[in-house]
């Protein structure tokens, strides 16, 4: 099920919340677990079993890792087996076809593989589940003895499909006595409506611009068209994904949980280093804590650090999709981050802020070309159009720009924190009077867009 659907908002959510608030706090997670299964099964009826399997494996592993903790060798063996199992599952469902295809390309062979439909959210929940036995092994948390609580944590519907990636240690204590307060629910509703509007009113609409340009032959694009297209995608992916995270965090609050933040106005960054501290933060910190630091991080000399960065970013790229362009996209960021680490960040301190900002935005926007265009040939043609198309603009570019000017300006504005700064300047009383009205209006308009939706994809569902 997706959050931005009438089924979710007008049927699933009220039924689940009503039951949830009526049930005594100690038993709430039973109800929540059931709701999670319905939520996941709605889109993936068969793959519910796969998710349950993943839950059982990692739950049992946690128990054994803790049980064997007096003898680290045994404990480590259990952990390694679990991690391999998790990665094998992910590998089978997500990467088998890609690996075989790459093998065919190199060896000139012609093996075929039946097409497997990617189970929804597998990359997210596998990472979430995998962190648990590792944390038990590192003795950051005691093992969970109740499989229902563990299962509820892994399958928690708000963040099951597209994050934020919540680690067990961040949430385990919240399961004792769940009791959402009025103010928590209010701020949850607020956050949910903001996320819904970001997704339905902005992401879907700028997405139509990108849809138009990506359907054209890249070699026929004008300068303006190529830029308008990729800028629209840049905005779409931010509003789509951060809107989803907002909805997840909001729903979490309505249920009495607090999830980690996932975005902090990434397009306000002055460098790529800063961008990745603000974009998809829970994934970045996952890779930092479970891959980069275990590899030695920056503690084993500069050369080793550079190699570690390359490894982490190649995997980060691949995590986003089973295709070479994602590896290229990851390595692109690795190179930029290394350059910044070596000298650029120091140099940037002497440059005016707007130049730094322009550089970061430019690099990120070009990055999305690598990210979104899977075929390498089309990708380079698109980049060429952005920098050297012989046509400056066409009439249809003007039409696209003019008929979307308002939504584009809104998208630019809301990808900064300016609205919050304005909010701080306005008297508290006015804010508390006007805010609910604006939010409810946004909610109603979003409903209108959902009733008549022809275009409502979630970009991060493929990961």
């Amino acid at each position, binding site marked *: *099920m997706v959050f931005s*659907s*009438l*089924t979710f*908002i*007008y*049927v699933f*959510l*009220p039924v689940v*919340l009503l039951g949830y608030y009526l049930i005594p706090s100690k038993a709430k997670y039973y109800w929540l677990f059931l709701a999670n299964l319905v939520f996941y099964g*709605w*889109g*993936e*009826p*068969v793959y519910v079993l796969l998710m349950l399997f993943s839950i059982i494996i990692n739950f049992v592993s946690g128990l054994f890792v803790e049980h064997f903790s007096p003898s680290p060798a045994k404990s480590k063996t259990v952990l390694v087996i679990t991690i391999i199992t998790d990665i094998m599952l992910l590998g089978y469902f997500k990467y088998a076809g890609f690996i075989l295809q790459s093998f065919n390309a190199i060896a000139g062979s012609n093996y075929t593989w039946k097409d497997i439909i990617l189970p929804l959210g597998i990359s997210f929940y596998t990472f979430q589940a995998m962190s648990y036995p590792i944390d038990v092994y590192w003795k950051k948390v005691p093992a969970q003895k109740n499989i229902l609580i563990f299962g509820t944590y892994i399958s928690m519907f708000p963040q099951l499909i597209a994050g934020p990636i919540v680690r067990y240690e961040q949430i385990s204590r919240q399961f004792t006595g769940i009791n959402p307060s*009025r103010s928590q*629910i*209010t701020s949850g*509703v*607020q956050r949910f*409506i903001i996320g819904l509007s970001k997704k339905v009113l902005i992401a879907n609409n700028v997405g139509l611009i990108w849809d138009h340009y990506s359907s054209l032959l890249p070699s026929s694009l004008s300068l303006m068209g190529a830029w308008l297209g990729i800028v629209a995608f840049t905005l779409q992916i931010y509003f789509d994904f951060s809107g989803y995270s907002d909805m997840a965090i909001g729903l979490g609050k309505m249920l009495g949980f607090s999830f980690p933040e996932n975005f902090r106005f990434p397009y306000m960054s002055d460098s790529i280093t800063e961008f990745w501290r603000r974009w998809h933060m829970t994934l970045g910190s996952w890779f930092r804590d479970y891959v980069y630091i275990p590899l030695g991080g920056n503690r084993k000399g500069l050369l080793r650090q550079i190699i570690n960065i390359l490894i982490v970013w190649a995997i980060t790229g691949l995590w986003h999709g089973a295709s070479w362009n994602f590896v290229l996209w990851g390595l692109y960021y690795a190179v930029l981050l290394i350059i910044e680490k070596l000298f650029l960040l120091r140099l940037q301190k002497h440059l005016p802020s707007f130049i730094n900002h322009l550089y970061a935005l430019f690099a990120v926007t070009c990055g999305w070309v690598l990210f979104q265009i899977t075929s390498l040939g089309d990708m380079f043609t698109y980049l060429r159009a952005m920098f050297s198309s012989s046509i400056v603009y*066409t*009439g*249809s570019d*003007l*039409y696209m720009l*003019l*008929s*979307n*000017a*308002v*939504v584009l300006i809104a998208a630019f504005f809301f990808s900064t924190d300016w609205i919050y700064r304005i909010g701080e300047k306005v008297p508290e009383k006015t804010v*508390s009077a006007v*805010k*609910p009205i604006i*939010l*409810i209006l946004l*909610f*109603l*308009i979003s*409903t*209108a*867009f*959902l*009733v*008549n*939706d*022809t275009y409502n994809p979630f970009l991060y569902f493929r990961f």
Partner: protein
Amino acid sequence: MKIKSNILIYLFFGIILVFLLLFLLLPKHTFSQQENRVLQEKPELKASDVTAGVFMENTDRYIADHFPLRDTWITVKAACEYAAGKRNSNGIYYGKDGQLFPQFNVPDYSKLAQKIEWINSWSSSVSAPVSLCLIPSATDIQRDCLPAHTVNTAEEDAIRFCYDNLSGPQAIDLRPVLTEHKNEKIYYRTDHHWTSYGAKLAFDTLQDHLYYAQHSDTSNLNATTVCDDFYGTSYSSSGYTWVHPDTIETYIDGNCASVESFVAGIWNEPQSSGLYDETKLNGKDKYSYFLGGISPLIHIHNSDLSPSSLLLIRDSYSDSIAPFLSQTYSDIYLVDLRYYKDSIQQFILEHPVNEILIMYSMKNFAEDNNLGLLIG
């Protein structure tokens, strides 16, 4: 104070619960007059449908199709987009003075070439002369009235491509005459069809080119208004519900020819109807006033004329030009290939056909794949 601090919760969950209750309680319609389509039925809970995900998909569609105040929501969306400067909703442009224009997308040229090839080869296999007429839409002819910068020659290009590749049949080009009158009401403002006036202009060109047409003078015909609250399909699918309605006019007396329409497969039991169906003026789909709407085969007979007959392979644009054509042929057979699935070859053998006209709007010609049935 308490209410004030919790107002957002009350409103948010209040709205959700009200619409959930309305959804559960309100009666469900099987057909949407507004959108002119069948709505999703209530899905049955079957194990096989659940595991395949069909049940969930249908439930989602069921909820969306029967969502309370659906038509109002669609208007709200169109109005919001309009306010934000957008002049296209669900593929309908909002043009000058609120005239609505269906968008014409660049067609698949390999398919177009295939269709022309079918017509070429079919026409060489029949003895009667064949003509092809592709009707341009308002989006092409009245393009000056489209929203700014919607430079679009796709439809003109497509028509030219088809005519250039035609070998054998005669091409009848309506663009010159319609373009000459582009500032008049030749198309409905809220519907994709041409008006009776537009059809009359087209008819004059047609009768000049067709081989067996008995000339009929249209210059003295006067228009009679039969309805002034016609909201067409562009109106319905766009959500631009604030635009003004159209009027429907006629030029030809409905009693001057007899009309028989047929149900698919039952070719020996004609149902007698008329050039116009008054009852359709009370419904939503008022364009069906002409010839009573969809039918696989319609036979129009005018006993005042000396024998000459036309086989018209057509889409719905022909409904409103049929009254004029009934003044030039004693017998017209209108065949709609979407519903007529029998052999056309056989039909020609069994009926006296002097000539054949294939007449489609360019948009339907590009999108409809039933032309293959000709040679089928």
